[in-house]
């Protein structure tokens, strides 16, 4: 319990740091110096100290968007295990709640965007709902494959699944897990608006997805949104390493440090992808996401085959 609370705080405090890691990685590849390590925290504090400007077109939906969105991501944080500790809240089927909480955060962001009546935000809104409709099956199918592979005893809770992962599981069904990992990389990049699906650093509204939806938010609202986005990246990274990494010692403290290093490693990986790839053309993004769905289904069929042949 205490370990779970500690990990919750680690996530809450450490999430913006991932953005720094990504930024530094990209700067290092490009031969630049990069921003200070604590820059994301300064940005958040600066926004929290400001007043706010609301568009005259908007209603309560626009003001509720950032609050509900952050609340949903914070609630999702309580469902994600870390290191050797269970999550604060764990129950049979909790990953369904995880996926749908993020869905709630997305819908309120989209509705807030539509509330401004701006063409740009409408543009981002429909891309967001369209791409997420394609990532959701990939995420669910790969979770199903993983639950069957790792859970074994019929347990469908993130906290149990992540304890069940070990090097032995990898040696048994490494290929299936590798396919799941590939699908998850695509899901992680797409859900967190990173290259190759979306470019968080661009300043051309026509090509953006997540950033363009939040053009009108300001002050504390915008801080909530940025913080929620950082936390979401942390959650996906923590789940990715928690459910797929076999590097576990069984010692609570040591495993937490290993998991933390691995989460940072995911951030470095995102930075590397962003350094070597360009954003895809928007019409090609669905192909990538449908590919992720296909890969996670494939993971199933291969694994099926393994069971059919003793």
């Amino acid at each position, binding site marked *: 319990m205490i370990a779970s609370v500690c990990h919750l705080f680690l996530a809450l405090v450490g999430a913006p740091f991932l953005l720094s890691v990504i930024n530094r990685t990209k700067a290092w590849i490009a031969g630049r110096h990069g921003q200070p390590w604590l820059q994301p925290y300064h940005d958040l504090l600066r926004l929290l100290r*400001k007043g706010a400007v609301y568009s005259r077109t908007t209603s309560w*939906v626009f003001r509720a968007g950032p609050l509900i969105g952050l609340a949903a991501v914070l609630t999702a944080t309580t469902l994600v295990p870390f290191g050797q500790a269970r999550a604060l809240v764990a129950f049979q089927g909790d990953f369904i709640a995880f996926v749908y909480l993020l869905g709630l955060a997305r819908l309120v962001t989209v509705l807030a965007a539509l509330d401004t009546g701006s063409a740009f935000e409408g543009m981002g809104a429909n891309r967001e709902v369209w791409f997420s409709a394609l990532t959701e099956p990939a*995420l669910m199918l790969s979770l199903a494959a993983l639950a069957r592979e790792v859970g074994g005893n019929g347990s469908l809770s993130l906290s149990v699944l992540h304890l069940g992962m070990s090097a032995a599981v990898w040696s048994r069904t490494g290929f299936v897990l590798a396919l799941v990992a590939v699908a998850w990389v695509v899901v992680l990049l797409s859900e967190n608006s990173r290259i190759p699906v979306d470019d968080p650093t661009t300043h051309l509204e026509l090509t953006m997805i997540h950033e363009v939806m939040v*053009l009108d938010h300001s002050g504390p609202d915008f801080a909530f949104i940025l913080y929620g986005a950082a936390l979401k990246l942390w959650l996906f990274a923590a789940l990715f390493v928690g459910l797929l990494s076999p590097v576990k010692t069984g010692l609570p403290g040591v495993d937490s440090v290993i998991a933390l290093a691995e989460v940072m490693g995911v951030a470095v990986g995102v930075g590397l992808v962003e350094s070597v790839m360009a954003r895809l053309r928007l019409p090609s993004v669905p192909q990538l996401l449908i590919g992720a769905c296909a890969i996670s289904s494939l993971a199933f069929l291969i694994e099926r085959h393994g069971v059919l042949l003793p």
Partner: protein
Amino acid sequence: MLPLLTAIGLLSTGGLIALVLGRKPRAAGTVAATACVAAAGVALPAVLAALAGGSPESLVLPWATIPGGAFHLVLDPLAAFFLVLVLVIPAVVAVPLADYLAATKPDRSHGLFWLAYTLLAAAMMVVVLAANVLLFLVAWEVMSITAYILVVFRDDRPEVRVAGWSFLAATHLGTAFLLPMFLILARGGPLEFDVLSAKELPTALVDTVFLLAVFGFGVKAGVIPFHVWLPTSYAAAPGPVPAVLSGVMSKLGLYGLLRVLTMLGPPPVWWAWVLIGLGLLSGVLGILNALVQHDLKMLLAYSSVENIGVILLGLGTGLLGLSAGPDRGGVALEALGFGGAMLHILSHAICKSALFLGAGAVERLAGHTEIDRLGGLLKVAPVVGTTFVVASAGLCGLPPLCGFSSEFLIFLTAFEEEARLSSVAMLPPLAVVGGLAFVGGLACYAFAKAAGLTFLGTTRGPSVLPQRLGWTASAIFIGLAIGCLSLGLAAPVVVGQLAPTIAVATRLPAPVVTAALPEVTGPLGGVTTTSTILLGILLLLVVVRKALLAGRVVATAVTWDCGYARPAASMQYTGSSFAEPAASVLGGGAGYSREVPSEMPYFPSEPPVRTDAVDPVKAVIYRPLFNALRATLARGRILQLGRVHVYVLYITLTLLGLVVWVLGIKG
């Protein structure tokens, strides 16, 4: 049973008084609405007692004139579950409906409409209570015909008349499947439900009965491919009427299916596969079609098709669970699947009633429901808009609202089965996982369009004047929004209450279901915990932001349009442009077409791009089928000469033939 009979009597009497008062819309509406509310008030206590698992009550009155008929009513938990919907939803809808009709159509008699409305409610009660085949079929027909009268109320419009005809044709085709189904089940014996059984039938006939039930009741439920009547009828029906049709009437198709399943004995696995297949088809095609619609009511209607699909997925995975065998937790899985389906029936009824009431309010405010000419209505009608947004999120299956609890249970059933079943048997639950996730994602897309483009932003058409909503109507909207939230939070309790219903529907002994129930309520309790945390954090954040902004400058300005200072309403995304990215990839499943001229002037005077959506099932299956049918039947026209003396000749010849036939037999 007496309260239920009183309720039926109240509804009929109220309808007859309204018929007499027809020329005074306000009075007729008030009488009918009062009758609906009173009927619900009288009957609900008895229904809730039966739902909690009291012993089934029954009533048998002879019905001498009809051979095989009997006025046989039985109130068991399954009937009670559907009776809750049948009593509550029409009562809730009646008040805003009376407002709507009195305001928009004061010039014609409302008597027949209100008589049909109350008789529809009474007929639906009898459908659910009937325990005799003939009584069931008569009530089923009354239900269909009264619903038809509601659909064609605005018969001055050609599209309404067409929709009415397709409704009538479809509902009678459906009944045509039900007659042979009941005849096979009766095996020439008595026509009472409690003796109908498939025990002594050969397997082939049992399978036939199952398929006939799926077709016959599937038409009423609106399962794809039997759904083509549904969207046009819902769009044609005036104001909030589709709330009753979608929230209750189409659910009675599911009731019929469940009732017949209880007569059929242990289901083979492929029945579950049929239900899952139809559920996936309805879910995916339904939501795709919803997404590309231009009309708000059509969008909502197709979403009803999608939700019937989700309910079928719950029933299908439930049946599949049973096939896993008792040793592998089959009972718990079936309870899980059926519990999910029941919960989804409730949550869809609440959310869809709210949405169709909202669409009715939009129709009254703006005079139309075309999404591309709406927008910004939240500021004109805040209560309606807020409820619409909440109910939309509820139907998307998002926590902490009711749709999430039910979809969670269906997901969980599929995940559990996928983890327990082996080899090919686990492909259907896998398809449920993938399909339900996809449908859920697209539902968010479709409802972001429905709620976002109708109620948010600024209006795209002529500006809409605010109208005061009566306090009863406001209370109903707020009540539905709260119901949406509280059903989500109280889902474990509600499913616990549904144990007797699940026991009847699954033909399992009640103690077995009760013993398996913790497997359902346990995870749902986790959902409630999560939702409570969510609401707690939300409250905290509200306080934090209030504290942060206290004493600072909070300004209003024009929407940031990247430096352009005069954004106009016409620059906003329209419904068509919002759906375009998905429609350009998946539009084939929705008969979507997009027309762009090859040459476009720099300043086009009218919208140069046209999009259209034609129901693919209608275009590919029904239209060719009915055209061929008409061509064949047209050959019979040579008999139809249009001259009276020829017809007299036909009559004479027929009489002559009959005389010869009778004399021949006698001789």
